[in-house]
């Protein structure tokens, strides 16, 4: 059974809202302060380390998150395909 990171999933779920995504793009750290992420997961998020994040969340949520964070589709495809 894969490990699901609930807090990370909740962050990605919440960022489907356009105002939340805008806030996140403007100040990631301020938004992340509201989520009790494990330190290494927070660091992976700040670094756009898709390889570390991907096994911890639903793939659809991951894609939505990358779009919400402002990552271009081509960059996401490159990162997710490894």
């Amino acid at each position, binding site marked *: 059974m894969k490990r699901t990171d609930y807090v990370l999933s*909740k962050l990605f779920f919440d960022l489907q809202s356009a105002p939340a995504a805008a806030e996140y793009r403007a100040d990631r750290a301020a938004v992340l302060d509201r989520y009790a992420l494990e330190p290494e997961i927070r660091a992976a998020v700040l670094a756009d380390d898709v390889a570390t994040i991907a096994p911890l969340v639903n793939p659809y949520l991951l894609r939505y998150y990358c779009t919400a964070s402002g990552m271009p589709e081509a960059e996401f495809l490159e990162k997710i395909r490894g």
Partner: protein
Amino acid sequence: MAKLAGVFAASHAPLIARDWHLFEEPLKAKLTSAYQRLGARVNAAKADIIIEIAPDHWSNFFINNLPSVCIGVGATHLGPPEPFLKAFGHTTLAGAPQFALHLLETALASGFEPSVSHQLALDHGFCIPLWRMELDPLPPIVPVIINSLEPPMPTVARCVAWGNLLASAIASYPVDARIAIVASGGLSHSIGEPTMGAIDEAFDAGCIRAFEAGGEPAIVDYLDAALRTAGNGSHEVRNWVAAHAAAGSHGFELIEYLAVPEVYVGCAWAAWSLAA
């Protein structure tokens, strides 16, 4: 008594709306034609109510409360939350609460325990087929969400049972109404995975062969094996399985199949035979 007016299926993809302006004209024409040809069948069915079986794409549910199956019993549903679907033009869609409650009660009396929602948002999975099929008038919708997004999911065999239940609920509904079923989703696609964008045409062909041939064991056996390696979005074919069983499993007519890398989806459109 109510009557099953027709059983149909169509693929969906958010990029069919979001990226439409980027597509070459021949692709636009092929997609438009496929949806319109299926839409003509649905319009001809003159349904008073459509049961639409679709996945939820994190629009209504999260992993704090994720139903395997949910029936929308609301008098109205919210339109698609995705901003790229504004052109659909429906901020709300009519429901059919009387029939939806009958379906819910029939399910509970038959050993099924679906979740119930009095207000669902119908995301692109529901609305792209409704929009692109150009249904006129758009009948009231009874949404049925089968979880095909986050494992573990209902088994393929259970989706057959759900299809049989839908047929039973229609047959026992004591109102003179024509009720159609539209399944939305599939066929193969992979989203947010290392295989993102891969279209498994062999998987799609296997599905189509099994649905065309009719019967239930073959499609269950095929999907139990093939879904293990098909992309994550391919699990939406569960909706097609429920439709197949609801139609009596006599086989379907494939209206169109298009592998469309521009939208990441092996797209298909089909109408089931209602008699052997």
